[in-house]
């Protein structure tokens, strides 16, 4: 076979992407190895994250040197992540479905590009700016009007900010799908005497259901990994499971981002290793969700339905 240097070199460049991904997974795994041995399965089921006494002599457990009294459990952060993302989805889905329907059916075609551009622009606002807005506007609002304790930081603020950030993902996916529904389907529903809204809700929405679910799962993947905005408005809860909408929480991502100082202070480096295990868990969760979204989007799960 003839050697083609140009093709080989662009191939090598493209291989850097999988290489980077493999490096991320591999080094997180290698680095968290000792933490995984020390923590075992308690890592996922324990509520307490305690860095231990860093000034005392480190103790050796299972052949691993850790600060005395250290224990690493991330159940609180897993729960915080799932609950805040779940609430965000609950808030975002009705809003984005309504917005997409209105954009595709009720808005004149002339101003639709402007409005849909506005919706898409929400997706490009940096996470940290959402957090700033959350602190300046949303948190005081929740504190004054909703929270019984007067403290606006917590689960509800985090969920609302997350919902705002993922709305454009669901809305623009759904809008594109609605605009592609064949004219014949709409017209036959109209011909049967359906009102315009019934055409949308009963004839068009069932056709785009698979796309909608794919978009929701994609949005979920984004919400699970969202860091800065959550870090800024969630109140930074730890070691205690959230009990109400106004409890302070931490998500896995925001917890990792907030732990820099304590990680650097640990002489045994164990907290850095444990955080690496946390990052690995977050990676696996988002990987599973994004792979699910990809399966749904490629239609692998509803091939049978289409053929019948």
């Amino acid at each position, binding site marked *: 076979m003839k050697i083609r240097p140009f093709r080989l070199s662009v191939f090598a460049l493209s291989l850097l992407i*999988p290489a980077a991904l493999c490096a991320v997974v591999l080094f997180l795994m290698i680095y968290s190895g000792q933490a995984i041995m020390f923590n075992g399965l308690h890592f996922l089921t324990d509520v307490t994250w305690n860095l231990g006494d860093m000034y005392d002599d480190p103790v050796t457990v299972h052949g691993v040197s850790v600060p005395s009294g250290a224990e690493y459990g991330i159940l609180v952060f897993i729960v915080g992540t799932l609950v805040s993302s779940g609430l965000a989805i609950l808030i975002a889905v009705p809003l984005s479905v309504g917005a997409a329907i*209105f954009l595709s059916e009720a808005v004149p075609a002339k101003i639709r590009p402007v409005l849909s551009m506005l919706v898409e622009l929400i997706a490009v606002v*940096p996470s940290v700016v959402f957090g700033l807005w959350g602190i300046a506007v949303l948190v005081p609002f929740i504190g004054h009007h909703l929270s019984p304790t007067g403290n606006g930081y917590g689960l509800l603020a985090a969920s609302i900010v997350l919902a705002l950030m993922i*709305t454009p993902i669901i809305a623009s996916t759904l809008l594109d799908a609605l605009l592609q529904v064949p004219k014949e389907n709409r017209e036959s529903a109209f011909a049967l005497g359906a009102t315009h809204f019934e055409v949308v809700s009963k004839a068009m929405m069932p056709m785009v259901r698979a796309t909608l679910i794919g978009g929701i799962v994609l949005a979920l993947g984004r919400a699970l990994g969202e860091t800065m905005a959550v870090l800024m408005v969630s109140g930074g809860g730890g070691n205690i499971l959230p009990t109400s909408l106004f409890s302070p929480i931490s998500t896995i991502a925001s917890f990792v981002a907030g732990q820099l100082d304590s990680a650097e202070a640990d002489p045994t480096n164990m907290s850095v290793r444990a955080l690496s295990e946390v990052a690995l868990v977050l990676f696996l969760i988002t990987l599973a969700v994004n792979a699910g979204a990809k399966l749904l989007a490629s239609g692998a799960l509803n091939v049978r339905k289409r053929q019948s």
Partner: protein
Amino acid sequence: MSASVSPKPFRSALEMKRVIYSNLGWVACGLALLLVIFPLLDIVWVIAVNGLSAFSVKLFTTDTTGASSGLRNAIEGTALITIFAMLIAVPIGIGAGIHLSEYGKNKTGSTIRFLSDVLTGTPSIVLGYFSYIIFIISFGWGFSLAAAAITIAILIVPYLARITELALEQVPNTMREAAYALGATDPTVVFKVVLPAAASGVITGALLALAISVGETAPLIYTAGWSNYTWDGRFTHSPVGYLTYVIWTFIDQPDAQSHALAFAAAFLVMLVVLAINIGVRLTVRRTKFV
């Protein structure tokens, strides 16, 4: 909506119910759209008002040494991180895009495409922590420009690759065939025919990647650190400041001057991000990239 308001002399109770439900449905959908768009407008408004009132020449001429100072070091740091990240990412991203579009229509190509999507979906904090382990701890670079730029580069390469691929795919095959028929080699076809034809798409991708790198925070916390001074010219062992750091740390300070600085930084970041995104969307009409 014409169907629901068509004039009829008599409506049965069932029909009335359906018409009322439909109208309620439209109202709900309209409200949903308002609720989606209103926060964006409020964000822009709040940041613009607070940011502009904090604007002064001092912002660009003094360093962030305390609450009542400027942002020169942070602006410079963000610019440096972005420039070096782009210098690393653009050749790799475009090269990878060329491979995927021109020679990657096979199993290997779709595997790379899938893994690239996985990398795009990876939370940026995970990438930042990975870089912390590698560059800061293992290589001993300390918080540094090099670590920050490489992390951002890892973050934007998959975007660049996919957008380049999509742009190159728009170029009709006949152009490639014509070039090959004239005896052109692979690099000639790509650089003289395909890339120029798809230039606007590739540049769009690079601009969007630029906007992403200006707005990122999470991957920089563990890689760039923070510095009160302008860059000393070293790539390692020297932390750099960046604008988004000012936003998330200064808003937690108790005094109003720190808040003003945070809003000023947010205004600058928003200005760059929105200008790029609006500009791109106005020039390239209705092209879905992400």
